[in-house]
């Protein structure tokens, strides 16, 4: 329990601390230290959960189970590695005068705020608080998206703000409906939004209301997941914000929105007793997957391109959760991990690459491997990993996903693999000229810390070759929670 408290407290403290000292040269170290502390405590928490099983806090406000504990761990970890990267990156930004002290304070404190809201969203037991924290995550990041105060960044920020705000309020309506359905059967109305309570009475809630609620929730949180056609904010926000932001946005935020959707699906399914929710998710997933894959061919901005690949993969996961069934769910959970790790690694590399080339325009990024081999190879390997080449973990999860699809919806398998090929082509046609070939004259290497990338990719590689038993157990527990039976 203390572990949980500490996990939540350290970023909370970080918000205020860094709000004051964020502009100092050593702020990045403080930031990193706080993130490390968060990670360590999260690790302790994870171990605790693994030993004692699910934890419910005394005030019933927090609940940690097999499903969210590994996401908490993932959050803390990626938050930490990205903090490592953000140090030199932001220094470079200051050096070229894109940000000033005030914005640095904002940046660091909001960085912590973002982590805090997300950990909150994951660990809370109250679906209302879940909503509040996810909205909070939007508020925390919206100013970071427009950090550079250029026309594009402000535009991106505004779109992000309005689209997500509107979407999220729909989710709130859904939550209200769930509450409405709950209070009729739950004695204490104060507990009407507690996950632990709702889960027990899931079967008894009224189907009609819940189906309505799920529509609102899906559209609402789906906006945050970046499901087509609710995705339009995502590429803008990713491409215009500072790169560390993009890394945690697509590495973590999307996951958490999806997490929320899945939580509600777990409530809705038993009540409906039909596959309605799943079908809706499959539809959204398929649409996002294919549209994003096609749009990859129209990209001019490197970060924008990878944000579309994020949409594609979120679509894939949504599709998998929609299918349901142990195999697909296990695959989706695994895909959450590997995608976060890989995608944040890619964004980190892209950050350095943009500094090397001095632009985000892909037409001007050339010959990275020759200029700075580690960055070039990192980008190349990372993209191979995200494109689903073995022996990386994405391959494993996609393999599970496809076999599950073929088992339950064989006619959906061909478009799925076709979409994969299309997406791959889109990625590589743009990637190759960036990493290979002759670098333009005067292009020089920059100070880059590739350790985060290395660690991430190594982990993904490990997951691809052999999944450690601990993780397998967690995922299996989560799978059992989600669909009733596991794969082990």
């Amino acid at each position, binding site marked *: 329990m203390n572990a949980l408290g500490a996990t939540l407290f350290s970023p909370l403290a970080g918000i205020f601390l860094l709000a004051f000292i964020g502009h100092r040269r050593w702020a990045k170290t403080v930031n990193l230290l706080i993130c490390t502390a968060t990670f360590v405590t999260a690790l302790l928490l994870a171990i605790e959960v693994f030993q004692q099983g699910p934890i419910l806090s005394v005030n019933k406000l927090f609940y940690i189970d097999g499903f969210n504990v590994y996401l908490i761990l993932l959050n803390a970890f990626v938050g930490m590695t990205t903090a490592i990267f953000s140090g030199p990156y932001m220094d470079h930004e200051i050096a070229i005068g894109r940000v000033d002290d005030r914005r640095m304070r904002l940046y660091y404190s909001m960085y912590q705020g973002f982590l805090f809201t997300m950990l909150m969203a994951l660990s809370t037991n109250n679906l209302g608080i879940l909503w509040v924290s996810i909205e909070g995550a939007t*508020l925390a990041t919206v100013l970071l998206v427009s950090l550079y105060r250029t026309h594009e960044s402000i535009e991106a920020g505004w779109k992000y703000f309005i689209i997500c705000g509107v979407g999220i309020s729909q989710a709130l309506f859904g939550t209200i409906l769930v509450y*409405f359905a709950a209070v009729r059967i739950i004695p204490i109305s104060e507990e009407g*939004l507690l996950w632990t309570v709702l889960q027990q009475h899931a079967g008894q809630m009224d189907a009609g209301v819940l189906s309505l609620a799920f529509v609102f929730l899906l559209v609402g949180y789906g906006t945050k997941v970046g499901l087509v056609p609710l995705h339009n904010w995502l590429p803008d926000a990713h491409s215009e914000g500072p790169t560390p932001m993009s890394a945690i946005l697509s590495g973590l935020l999307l996951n958490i929105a999806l997490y929320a959707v899945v939580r509600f699906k777990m409530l809705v399914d038993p009540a409906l007793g039909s596959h309605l929710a799943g079908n809706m998710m499959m539809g959204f997933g398929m649409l996002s997957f294919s549209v994003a894959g096609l749009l990859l061919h129209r990209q001019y901005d490197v970060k924008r391109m990878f944000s579309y690949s994020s949409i594609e993969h979120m679509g894939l996961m949504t599709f998998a959760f929609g299918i349901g069934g142990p195999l697909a769910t296990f695959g989706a959970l695994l895909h959450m991990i590997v995608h976060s790790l890989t995608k944040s690694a890619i964004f980190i590399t892209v950050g350095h690459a943009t500094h090397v080339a001095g632009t985000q325009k892909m037409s001007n990024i050339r010959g990275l491997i020759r200029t700075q081999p580690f960055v070039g190879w990192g980008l190349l390997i990372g993209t191979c990993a995200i494109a689903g080449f073995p022996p990386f973990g994405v391959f494993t999860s996609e393999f599970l996903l496809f076999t599950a699809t073929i088992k339950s919806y064989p006619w959906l398998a061909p478009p799925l693999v076709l979409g994969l090929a299309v997406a791959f082509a889109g990625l590589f046609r743009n990637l190759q000229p960036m990493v290979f070939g002759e670098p333009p004259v005067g292009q020089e290497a920059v100070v880059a810390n590739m350790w985060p990338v290395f660690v991430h990719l190594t982990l993904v590689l490990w997951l691809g070759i052999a999944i450690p038993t601990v993780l397998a157990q967690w995922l299996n527990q989560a799978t059992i929670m989600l669909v009733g039976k596991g794969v082990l």
Partner: protein
Amino acid sequence: MLIASLSLPEQVVLTLAALILLSSFLLLAQVRLDSLINTFALQGLLIFFATVLMAFIAGKYHLLISAALTLFLKVFFIPGQLRLLIIRLNIRREVEVIGNPSLIMLFAAALVLFSYYVALPIRELSLLSTRNTIAISLAVVLIGMLIVISRRKAVAQVVGFMSMENGLFFAAVVSTYGMPMVVELGIAFDVLVAVILFGVFFFHIRAEIGSLDTDRLNHLTEVEK
């Protein structure tokens, strides 16, 4: 069940609900920013009254707290903030042109019908006397969204967004006597922060494109021009 069979306060609540819906229509119709904001404040006030009444009807006095929150946020703070902004940005008298208002009105009316049709299964369940109001609140939410869609000016969009919040809050109150307190507080906090951030954004947008016309924020696209 006939409205006649209800107690007077309940009848008042229903009337208020109707008025709130009306206020949404007014919001949709307003073309001048300052009057838009005033109407928004009015809507907040109506919701405040409705909440207080619900509190007394159901004897759930924690509702009074949320009522107070509403009064503070939706009636004074947010409208005040917005007024301040439009004065400082000097766009009080700015007129928002809406493409074919009558059509939009018709569409809004259709939305009301649609939300009634959607809310049917819910009202069958509700034990509360005021169950029909769920349809109203849904309509308010949808119309709020319609406002955001149909307006170009950032301020107007914010107002629309806030009136969606109104609808949500109203829905919570009339369908379930409000959400748990902690959630209410959280939501209120979010709204507060959101408004401040909106203020910040107005200045940035203004600084960047010289007006608050968000249609001119269209650089980020896949369609090459």
